C-alpha cells in the first residue's frame, strides 16, 4: 500500500472524503474528483510529512471515537455544572504529570487533543523528551484517578491503533 503513488493511504481516503464533504455531494463527479485529489494532494504534501504513521487497527479508531464522543458529552455537562454552580476559587485545580508509553508524535498528539477535549482536563505541555504530558485539571479530587483514566481509556486504545 505504501507506494510512491499512495504515500499516505489513510490520508488519501481522508482527502477524498473531505472533498466529497466539501462538495456536499455524493455524485460520481465529486467522487471521481475526490479520488483524484486523494492521490494528488498527499503526493504533493508527502515531503512535509516524512514519517508515515501506521494505523494498525483502524477499527479500534471507531471505538476510540465513540469513547471520546461520550466523554466529551460528559465533560461538557460536568464543566458546565462547575462553571454555573461553583465559585471559581473553590475549584481544586492542579497540574498532574501523565507518563506516556506512546512514542509516535501522531499518537501523542491525538492523546493530548483528546485530553483537552474531555472531562475537566487540558494538556498544557509535553516533556522535552516526549515521555510525559503535563495535564491541568479543573477540579480534581483525586489526581491519580485522572492519570489512570487517561491511560486506560485513551492511551491503551491509541497504543493499539498506532503502535
Amino acid at each position, binding site marked *: 500500500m505504501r507506494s510512491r503513488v499512495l504515500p*499516505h493511504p489513510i*490520508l488519501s481516503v*481522508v*482527502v477524498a472524503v*473531505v*472533498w466529497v464533504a*466539501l*462538495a456536499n455531494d455524493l*455524485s*460520481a*463527479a465529486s467522487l*471521481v*474528483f475526490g479520488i483524484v*485529489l486523494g492521490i494528488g*494532494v*498527499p503526493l*504533493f*504534501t508527502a*515531503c*512535509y*510529512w*516524512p*514519517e*508515515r504513521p501506521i494505523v494498525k487497527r483502524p477499527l479500534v479508531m471507531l471505538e476510540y471515537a465513540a469513547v471520546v464522543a461520550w466523554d466529551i458529552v460528559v465533560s461538557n455537562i460536568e464543566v458546565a455544572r462547575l462553571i454555573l454552580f461553583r465559585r471559581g476559587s473553590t475549584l481544586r485545580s492542579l497540574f498532574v504529570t501523565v507518563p506516556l508509553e506512546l*512514542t*509516535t*508524535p*501522531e499518537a*501523542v*498528539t491525538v492523546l*493530548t*487533543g483528546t485530553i483537552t477535549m474531555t472531562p475537566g482536563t487540558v*494538556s498544557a505541555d*509535553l516533556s*522535552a*523528551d*516526549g515521555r510525559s504530558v503535563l495535564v491541568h485539571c479543573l477540579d480534581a479530587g483525586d489526581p491519580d484517578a485522572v492519570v489512570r483514566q487517561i491511560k486506560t481509556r485513551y492511551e491503551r486504545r491509541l497504543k493499539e491503533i498506532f503502535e
Partner: protein
Amino acid sequence: MRLALIALLPLLGAMLPPLASRAGRDAVTAVAALVTLTALALLATSAPAVLRGEIVQDGTAWVPQLGLSFSFFLDGLGLFFAALILVIGLLVIVYARSYLGRDEPVGRFFAYLLLFQGAMLGIVISDNVLLLVVFWELTSLSSFLLIGWWHQAPEGRQGARMALVVTGGGGLLLMAGMLLLGHAAGSYELSEILLRGDVVRASPLYLPILLLVLGGAFTKSAQVPFHFWLPHAMAAPTPVSTYLHSATMVKAGVFLLARLWPVLAGTEAWFLIVTATGLVTMLVGAWIALFKTDLKAILAYSTVSHLGLMTMLLGFGTPIAAVACVFHVLNHATFKAALFMGAGIVDHETGTRDIRRLGGLAGLMPITATLTLIAAAAMAGVPLFNGFLSKEMMLEAAWHTRYADLAWPVPLLATLAALLSVAYSARYAIGVFLGRPRAALAHHPHDPPAGMWLPVAVLLVPVLLIGVAPALFAGDVVALAGQATIGTAALPGYHLALWHGVTPALIMSVAAFAGAALLYAGLGPLTRLHARLDRPDAKAAFDAVVAAVVRACRTTTRRLHTESLPRYLAIITGVVVLVGAAGFFGGTHAAGGRATLPVSLPAVVAFVLLATTSLAVPAVHGMRLLTLVLVSVVGLVVSLAFLQFSAPDLALTQITVEVVATILLLLALNLLPKRTPSETGTARTAGAAPTVRMLRDGAIAGAAGLGVAALAYAVMTRDFTPISDYHLAQSKPGGGGTNVVNVILVDFRGFDTFGEIIVLSIAALAIVALLDNALRGAAARRLDTLKRAVEAADPHPTVLVVVARALLPLALTVGIYIFFRGHNLPGGGFIAGLVVAIALMMQYMAAGFDWTAARRRFDAHALIGAGVLVAGLTGLGALAFGRPFLTSSYGYFHVPLIGEIELATAMLFDTGVFLAVVGTVVLSLARISLVERRAERGPPSRSAAVPGPDRATASRPAAAAAPVGREA
C-alpha cells in the same frame, strides 16, 4: 536667411574656437575674428538696402501659438548697433589675444564672447519682440559666464551672479512687458508694433507695459537704483568689460528704449520716469566715479553716468534728443572702449589698477598715455573730440526741457553732471599718466605689444574724426539711426558741427569746465570728506537683500519641511477634512428616502465590540502586542459585517487576510521595540507640546471620523441606480458564472484584478529587495546585538507540528475546492491562494523555516512570475481570435463518469491570480523570517554550527527520527 545668419553665425560659430584650441591661441583668435568678420560681411551686404531707407526683413515661424517667430528686421538703428557690436567685437578679440594669460583656455573664452556677440546681435536685429527677449536673456547668460571667467576669485563669482540676477530679473520683467505689448498692439512683430504706437499708448495696458519694459531696460543699462551690478561686473577680464560694459550689453537697455521710442515715448509717464531716472543716474554715476580709486571702477561708474545721460535724452521724448542719444551712443562706445582697453593695458603692465598707486606713466608708456588721454578728453567732452559734440547736444536738449513745470532742474543738474564728468576724467588721466611716477610697482611698465594698443588706436580714429568733422564722418550714420529711432516722425533740423555760436549749451559747457577745475583743485579735502561720509554701499545692500532672501527661504523651508511624518500627515489630513467640508457645504443636500434596515442584537453587539476595541487602541497603543490582539478583534467584526450584509466573498477574503496580516505584524514586532514610548515624554523633539498635539490630532481625527460617518449614513439612506444590474443579468449568460462578484473580478473587471495581482507581486519583489541587504551593515550589527527575551525551550512544539502536517493536505483540498467553486459560489483564486499560502505558512510556523524550506517543491519567485504570466497570457489569448485583451470564453464539456463540466478561460486567469497570491505571501513571510533568523542565531560564523533540524523529531524518541534522516 541672411539676416538671421548675422546673429546665428556667432552663436553657432561659438563652437569653433574650442575646437580650434589645439592649434594654438593665434588660430583660435583667427577663428573668432573670422566668425565676426563673416558676420560683419553679411551685415554689409544688407547695409546698402538699409541705407536706401528700406527695411530688410527675414525670418521663419517658430512658435505660432505664442506669436513667437524667428523673424528679423534691419533698419538704421539695428544696422548702427549691429555694426557697433561687430566692429568693437573684432577689436576686443584682437586685444584679448594679447591680454589673456598663456595658460587660460582661450578657446572657451572666445566661445563665450561669440555667444555673447550673437545674443547681442539678436537683440538689435530681432523683429519679433519675444525673440528679442530670448536674445536679451541670452546676453544675461553669456555675460554671466564671461564675468565669472576668473571664478576662482570670489569677486568673479559674486559679480557674475549679481549681474545675472539683476539683468536676468529685468529680462523677466521685459518678458512680461513684451507679452503685454504684443497683446496691446495685436502683433509681436516690431515692424508692426512700431506702426501702432497710438494703439499701444491708448491701451489700458500701456502703463504696465511701460513699467515692465523700463524694468528690463533700466536693469540692463544699470540705471539707478539698479546701477550697482555694473561695477562689480568689472571682476571680468578687461576685454569683457570693454565689450560688455562699454559698447554692448549695457547699451542693450538704451537700444531697447530707443527701439520702442516711437511706441512708448511721448507720454507724461514716460517723460517723468525715464528723464528722472536718466538724470539721477547721470549724476550719481558721475559723483561715485569721482571718488573711486580702481581704474575700472571709475570707468564703470562713468559708464553708469553716461548711460544715464542717454536714458535721459530718450526720456525727453523729443526727436532731437533721441538723435542726440544715438549720437552719444556712437561716441561713448568708441571712447569708452578705448579707455577700458587702456586701463587693461595699465593693469597688465603695472599689475595694479589702483589710481593711488599709479602716476607718471606717460613717460614709461607714451603710446598708451597718448591714447588714453585722447579718450579721456572725449569722455570729458573736450572740444575736438567726439564726446564734446554729443554732450553739447545733450545740454542743448536739456536747456529746453521743463520738469514738473520748472525750467531749471534739468539744465542745472545736467550741467552739474557734465562738471563731474570733466572732473573724474581729469582725475583719471592726470592720476595715472601725469604727475610723478610712483615707486613700488611690481615690474617695469612699458608699452604693450601692438596687438593690445592697436585696437585702442583704431577706436580713437572715429573719436578724432568725428570730433573734428562730425557732419562728414557721422552725419549719415546719425541721420540713419536717428530716423530709425524716431520712426515715422520727421527728422528734426539739426546741424552736426563743432561751432554753433554762443548757445546756452556752450555756456553750460564752459561753466562745467570751470566748475570742474575748481572741483579738481579741491578734490583732496573733498575726498577725505567723502571717505568720512557714511554712504550707502549698493553691493552690501544687494548682498544683504540676497542674504535676507536666502535666509528667509532657508528658515521657511526648514520650518515647513521638518521631515516629521506626523506633521505632514496632520496637515494633509487636515486639508482633506477642510476640502471635504467645503465640498459638502458648497452643495445642496437633502435627506435620502431609502428605508433603513432594522437593528438586530448581534449587530449591536458587534458594534459594541468594534467600538470598544477600536476606541481602546488609542489608549493602549503603547503596548503593541495588545494592540494587535485588539486589531484582530476588529478584523473579526469586519469579516462578520461583510457576512451579515450579503458579501460572503468579502468575508472569506477578510478572514484569510487577517491571519496572514497578523503573522506578518508579529514577525515585524519581534524585531521592533515592544512598546511605544509615551509621547508626553518625547516632547522635546516633537515640536508642539504633547497636549497641544493630542488636541490637534484628536480634532482632526474626530472631524474625519464624523465626516466619514455622516457621508456613509447619507449614502446608505438614499437610493440610486447602479450599472451593476447589467452584471447581475449578464453574469451567467455572458460570463458563465453565477457568483457575480467573482465574474466581475475575473471577467467584467478582470483588468482590475490583473492590476491587483501585479500590485501584490510588486509588494513581494519590493520586500525581497528591501530585505536583501538587511543582513549587511548597520542593520546586521543591530540584529546581532538585539536583546533576546526569555523564551520557550522548544521552538517547534510536537502538537503543533503534527497538527500542521495533518492540516496541510486538508487545507490544500479546501483551497482547491474554494478555487473551483469560485466562479459560481463564494470563493475564487484569491481566497484559494490565501488558504493554500496559510497552509504552507503553518508548516513554516510549526516545523521551522529551514525544515520547510528544504522540502519546498517550488520557488515563490517563480510562482509570482508564473502567476502574472498566466493571467497575462490568458488575456492575450483572446487577441488570437481578434478579441480584446481578457475576453473570456467558456463552454460545457461532457466527461464520461463525471458528467457535464464547465470550463472557462476565466478560470485560467484565476489560476494566475492563485499562483501570484501564493507566491507573494510565501515569499514575503519567508524573507522576513530569514532576517529574524539572523537575530536569533547571530552572525553567519556562529550559525554555521546549526544544522537543519527537524524540530518535530527533536522532542520525540531518537529511533523515530531515523526516517527523517533517510529522507534528508
